[in-house]
C-alpha cells in the first residue's frame, strides 16, 4: 500500500493512534470491530448491466458489470466465465500512478474474485448459450476513485451489489436476471500491537504489521482467506480473525446485502 500524501505517516499521528488503542479506541473513535459508515447506491451506472457506488468511510469505489458473449475456457465448456478487475485510479490517491495494474491492485482483485468464485455466487452453469462454443462472460470492473483504506471489503460490497442488480441481455434474446445466490462477505482486519482492527483506514493499513481477510458465507463456512503485509500472525490470531469475520460479516450481510 502506498504511504500517505507526504510519503510517510507522521510519527505524531502514529503515536496518537497507538495511544488511543491502549484505551480500546481507534484514531477515529471506532471500536476494534466497528466498520466505518457504509453507503451503497445500487444501479448507479445505467449503461452497465449492473452497478453500485460504494462509500466505506472516505473510500469510494464504483463497480460495474458488463456481460458479453464469448468462448468458454477449454477445461470448463459447460460454464460461463467470470472475471474481476480493479483499477486504482490516479485520482484516488496522490501516489497512485496510471499504467498497468501493480501487485497491490492484482492482489485486491484476486481476493475479491476468490470470495465470489468459491461461494459460487454466480451460477456459471446457467450462463451457457451453446456448450463448448458460446457462453456469457461476466466482467466485474471496479474503479477506485477515492482511497482511505480497506479496498478489498469496499470492492467486494460493490461487486456483490452490482451482481445482484445485473441483467443479462442481448438483441434477439430474452433478457434474464443474472443468477446470483450465496453471497460471501469479506472482512479485512489489520494487526496493530496485539489488536485486530476491522475495516482499517489508510493510516491503520500503513502502520499495521499484518493484514488478514476472511470471506464467509451465510452457512458459517470460510470461502477465501488471504494474509497480507510482512508481519506474522499466530494461529490463535487467525482463529480469532475467523470468528470476528463470521460475526461482523453476518451483521454486514443483514444490513447491506439482503
Amino acid at each position, binding site marked *: 500500500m502506498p504511504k500517505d500524501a507526504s510519503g510517510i505517516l507522521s510519527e505524531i499521528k502514529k503515536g496518537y493512534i497507538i495511544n488511543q488503542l491502549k484505551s480500546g479506541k481507534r484514531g477515529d473513535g471506532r471500536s476494534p470491530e466497528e466498520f466505518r459508515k457504509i453507503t451503497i447506491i445500487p444501479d448507479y451506472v445505467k449503461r452497465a448491466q449492473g452497478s453500485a457506488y460504494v462509500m466505506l468511510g472516505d473510500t469510494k469505489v464504483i463497480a460495474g458489470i458488463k456481460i458479453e458473449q464469448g468462448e468458454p475456457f477449454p477445461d470448463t465448456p459447460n460454464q460461463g466465465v467470470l472475471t474481476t478487475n480493479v483499477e486504482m485510479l490516479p485520482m484516488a490517491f496522490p501516489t497512485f500512478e496510471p499504467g498497468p495494474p501493480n501487485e497491490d491492485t492484482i*492482489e485486491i482483485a484476486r481476493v475479491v474474485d476468490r470470495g465470489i468464485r*468459491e461461494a459460487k455466487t454466480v451460477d456459471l452453469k446457467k450462463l451457457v448459450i451453446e456448450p463448448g462454443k458460446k457462453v456469457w462472460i461476466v466482467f466485474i470492473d471496479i474503479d477506485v476513485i477515492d482511497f482511505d483504506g480497506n479496498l478489498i471489503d469496499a470492492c467486494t460490497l460493490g461487486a456483490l451489489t452490482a451482481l445482484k442488480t445485473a441483467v443479462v441481455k442481448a438483441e434477439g434474446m430474452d433478457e434474464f436476471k443474472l443468477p446470483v445466490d450465496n453471497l460471501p462477505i469479506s472482512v479485512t482486519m489489520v494487526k496493530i500491537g496485539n489488536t485486530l482492527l476491522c475495516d482499517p483506514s489508510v493510516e491503520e493499513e500503513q502502520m499495521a504489521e499484518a493484514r488478514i481477510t476472511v470471506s464467509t458465507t451465510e452457512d458459517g463456512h*470460510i470461502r477465501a482467506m488471504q*494474509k497480507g503485509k510482512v508481519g506474522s500472525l499466530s494461529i490463535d490470531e487467525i482463529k480469532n480473525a475467523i470468528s470476528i469475520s463470521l460475526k461482523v460479516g453476518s451483521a454486514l450481510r443483514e444490513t447491506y446485502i439482503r
Partner: protein
Amino acid sequence: MGTESNIKLLDENGLRLDGRNEMELRPIKIETNVLERADGSAFIEWGGNKIIVSVYGPREAYPKHTQDIDKAVIKARYNMAAFSVDERKRPGPDRRSVEISKVISEALSSAVMVEQFPRTQVDVFIEVIQADAGTRIAGLTAASVALAAAGIPMRDMVVGCTAGKIEGKIVLDLSKEEDNFGQADLPMAVLSRSGEVVLVQMDGDLSVEEFNQATDMILDATKRIAQIQRDALVARYSVETQGGE
C-alpha cells in the same frame, strides 16, 4: 477448486489416488547450492514438483525509488516454466504469479533480518520446472533454504505445507488431482521455531472445525519439513568442511 468430475479421490480404505493416507506427505528432497553464480540456491523435489530457487544479494536496490531507508527489500519472483504444466504456459508474469510473488516476498521478509541492510534488495528467483500442486509452498520452503545457504542473516526459517478437503475429508499436502477436483485448498507457511504464520491463503469451502483440523495437520507437518530443510543445510556444509581438510 470444485471442478466437478467422476474421479474418486478416496478409495474404500480411505486411501488417496497415490496410496497416501490423509496425514501423509509426498516425498520431499532438498539440495542446496545447486547453481554456481548465485549467492545461494536450492533445489526442491516435492512429490512431482521440481523447483529451483536462487538468491542474489543483498545488493543495491534498483530502481532507486524502491529503496527503503530502514531495511532491505525482499523481491521474490515466482515463475513457471512454459513446459512445467500440461498445457504450455505463456512465458512471463501473469496475475496469479504476481500475487504469489507478493505473498512469498512478504513471508520471507518476516524471517530475514532486513533491518541490517537498508537500501538494498535481496532477489529470490523461484523457477518452477515441473508443477504438481503446492508449488508456492514448495518454492517458499526452498527459498528459505536458499537464503540461508546464501549466508543471509535470518531470525528463523520459513516452512510451509498445504492441507485441503477432498470428498468431505481434510487431508494433508494435496496432489494435482486433489487440487483440481477437491473442495478446498489451504496453503500456509510459518516461522519454524515460533510457529507464527507468515503466509496463509485459502479458497474453497471449509467450516471452522475443518479449518482447525487442517491447521493442526499443517503445523505438525511443518515440523517434519523443517527437519528436511535443516538436513539439507547441514549436509551441504559438512561436506565443505571435509573437502577443505
